[in-house]
């Protein structure tokens, strides 16, 4: 009996030690108070990393993994302006087809070797030849290196988004001998503020970064270590935040209230355009869509404000535009171009010869929570919608094959020229039926060839107004991108990415 008692006591003691250790571990993890030094930044990511090879890097959630390793040639500020990065100067010629980048003279890779213009060229060419999602960014650019610190990009025609691309994955540089190799994909030698601590990194679980002692501007990064944890489920990310395991996460309207209640720092920016893509504008599949009045009727038929409230809990901005509402292409007056007006929609349909409406088949996937309402509202004006279920994982690929004349979609917006490239040229992924309009092409060319910033802005406004008038699209709203941090960490919302770049995080100032 005594022996049993002793054993029980020992077991109880062991349990107590474990519990206390657990408490200790849990206590170590939470962030410190605002104003107090935080040596480790631990953030979560919705996606796991895919590859560290520069040609395979992605924008979006995965920037959390590669921004510790890589610096960029240029930097995009929270105010959406481009500033020097590894390139201390950048300048276009008067035709805006030749961009000259001058590298800093103190750039080194994490192994201590110098980073030269030849290394930049090797990376850019690797990027162009790769099969990554962003290899379009430098497509067609001829790259030359007059000297060790100068890189010259020569284009066939101006690309107003090029500078922005160089603040993103097109502007990273890894040591060329690792490009395309397994080692380069797993642990490249780069020139960013941190290096990967492979002993404390496990794919799918945790990525740990420690300072790169050769980095040229360590003062821009206040954290001694950075830890990124892939946590796919939003509820799990929120639990990790609430328990102090991580200090940052991407949120959605579904967790917004809970995040605010928990006292987290919550910031947002409009980012994704949600709406209908009317792609069969010449009526090859659904003849009615060739008529501008029908496309306008679709815009009038949708209760955008109602959808914004019901599917996005109000986190966004009503918009009828292709472009981001914070970009220079935005024209505030266009927001009210198509107020919810079913009677006006019916009248336009009647004018176009479709008083009895018409039938259309739209795809639907599991993540589309607006389909029922959209179908009802189109039905109310006589447009009879039949939904066909498409697997969520294949949705984008399916709608881009031209099987549907119109479909609901959510597309990220940011740099206006990038948005144009996504939607307007016949090669654009979202110009599915390759619609051409000479008037629009002329407006786009005017914007592209603009010499001054004012001319460029005016050119974009003209493109924007034309697209809204011609109802090439039927946007509902621009959804906010939400991001939360614990109170000891402050951050700037990246103007064009769903999660902050590493340089956007800092310790919160004391009140």
């Amino acid at each position: 009996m005594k022996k049993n008692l002793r054993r029980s006591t020992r077991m109880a003691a062991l349990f107590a030690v474990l519990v206390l250790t657990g408490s200790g571990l849990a206590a170590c993890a939470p962030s410190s108070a605002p104003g107090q030094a935080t040596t480790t930044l631990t953030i979560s990511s919705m996606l796991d990393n895919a590859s560290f090879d520069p040609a395979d890097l992605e924008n979006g959630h995965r920037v959390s993994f590669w921004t510790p390793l890589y610096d960029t040639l240029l930097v995009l500020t929270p105010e959406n302006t481009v500033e020097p990065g590894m390139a201390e100067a950048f300048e276009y010629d008067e035709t805006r087809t030749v961009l000259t980048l001058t590298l800093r003279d103190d750039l080194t890779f994490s192994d201590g070797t110098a980073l030269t213009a030849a290394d930049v060229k090797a990376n850019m060419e690797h990027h162009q030849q790769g099969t990554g999602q962003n290899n379009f960014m430098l497509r067609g650019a001829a790259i030359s290196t007059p000297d060790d610190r100068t890189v010259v990009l020569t284009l066939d025609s101006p690309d107003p988004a090029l500078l922005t691309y160089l603040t993103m994955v097109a502007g990273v540089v890894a040591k060329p001998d690792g490009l395309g190799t397994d080692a380069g994909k797993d642990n490249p030698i780069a020139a960013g503020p941190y290096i990967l601590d492979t002993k404390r990194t496990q794919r799918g679980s945790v990525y740990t970064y420690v300072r790169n002692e050769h980095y040229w501007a360590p003062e821009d990064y206040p954290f001694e270590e950075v830890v990124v944890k892939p946590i796919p489920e939003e509820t799990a990310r929120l639990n990790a935040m609430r328990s102090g395991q991580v200090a940052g996460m991407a949120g959605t309207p579904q967790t917004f209230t809970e995040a605010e209640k928990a006292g987290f720092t919550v910031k947002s920016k409009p980012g994704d355009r949600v709406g209908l893509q009317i792609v069969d504008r010449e009526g090859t599949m659904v003849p009615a869509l060739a008529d501008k009045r029908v496309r306008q009727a679709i815009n009038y038929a949708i209760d955008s404000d109602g959808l914004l409230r019901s599917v996005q809990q109000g986190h966004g901005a009503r918009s009828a535009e292709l472009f981001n509402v914070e970009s220079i292409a935005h024209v505030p007056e266009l927001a009210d171009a198509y107020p919810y007006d079913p009677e006006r929609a019916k009248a336009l349909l009647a004018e176009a010869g479709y008083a009895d409406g018409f039938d259309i088949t739209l795809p639907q996937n599991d993540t589309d929570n607006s389909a029922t309402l959209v179908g009802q509202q189109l039905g109310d004006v006589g447009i009879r919608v039949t939904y066909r279920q498409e697997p969520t994982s294949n949705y984008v690929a399916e709608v881009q094959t031209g099987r549907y004349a119109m479909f609901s979609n959510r597309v990220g917006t940011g740099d206006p020229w990038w948005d144009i490239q996504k939607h307007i040229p016949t090669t654009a992924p979202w110009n599915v039926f390759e619609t051409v309009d000479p008037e629009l092409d002329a407006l786009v060319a005017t914007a592209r060839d603009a010499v001054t910033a004012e001319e460029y802005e005016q050119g974009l406004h003209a493109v924007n107004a034309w697209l809204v008038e011609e109802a090439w699209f039927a946007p509902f709203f621009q959804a906010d991108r939400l991001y939360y941090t614990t109170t000891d960490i402050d951050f700037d919302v990246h103007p064009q990415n769903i999660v902050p770049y590493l340089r956007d995080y800092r310790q919160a100032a004391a009140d």
Partner: protein
Amino acid sequence: MSGMPTFIARRIGSGLILLVALTAVAYALVYSGSTNVAQKILGDFATADQIQAKAAELGVDRPLGVQYADWLLHAVQGDLGRSWFTAEPVLEAVFSRLAVTASLVMLALAATVVLSLLLGITAARHRGGAADRGLQLFAVAGEAVPNFWLALVLVSTFAISIPLFPATGFVPPTVSVGGWLLSLVLPVTAIVVGSVAGSAQQIRGAVIDVLQQDYIRTLRARGLSERSIVLRHALRNAAPPALTVLSLQFIGMMSGAVLIERVFALPGMGNLAVDATIQGDIPVVMGVLISMAVIVVIVNLLVDIAAGWVNPKVSLA
């Protein structure tokens, strides 16, 4: 026991046929639900030529049967290919994630065995008593509560309100044994409640059946202690159905681990399978599937062998 080698050979043979049939059906299903893979990998701005080249590189431009035969040929040589999206070797990905899921499931299974035996035998010995009624109540409640809901309650209570355990994540035992145990306490508890509820009932029923047999009465008449009767005789005879139930529990846990791994952000097979399925990463999906199928076949085989070993009267036909 003379029929044991034949029995094992027969079971291995049927297991292999099952694996081939399962992977063929799965390949067809996964393939049909995942079109335009090359475009998905290359992104929106890929040109038609790039898409065509990528499709050829991946081999997805070939007929389905040829693709499956190619995959199977490599699979039997231990080459499950590479992830289409991360280029990580599938075998490497599966093994690294399997360690996490195995930790979770083996701990949950061990806890289930111990608790189920304890509760089942106690309830059987005190049939109709308070312990027995308590077990009935627990069984109903335990079966009724979804494990993901219980997981969320556990996190909210023991990781956030009372921060005793981590809310998410996995600590490999090579890094810290204490951390490893702590990271698994809540996930294992979330699984074990339901599995114990089912298993304890089965063990209770099996033990009651055996305790009513004539030979038990004879043993009692010979003066054997109740403890000896239960542990050495009743439990041995009740073992085969209990082992079958536990093997089913194990298989259930492997599949149930998917939800638990999501809730606790454990980098296991479940998370790997879900992410790969969402992306349409066929090599990884197939790698996970065949690994799970092999495990299930092996576990069933081991359970059959164990049942025969524990009780030689069990037919091996």
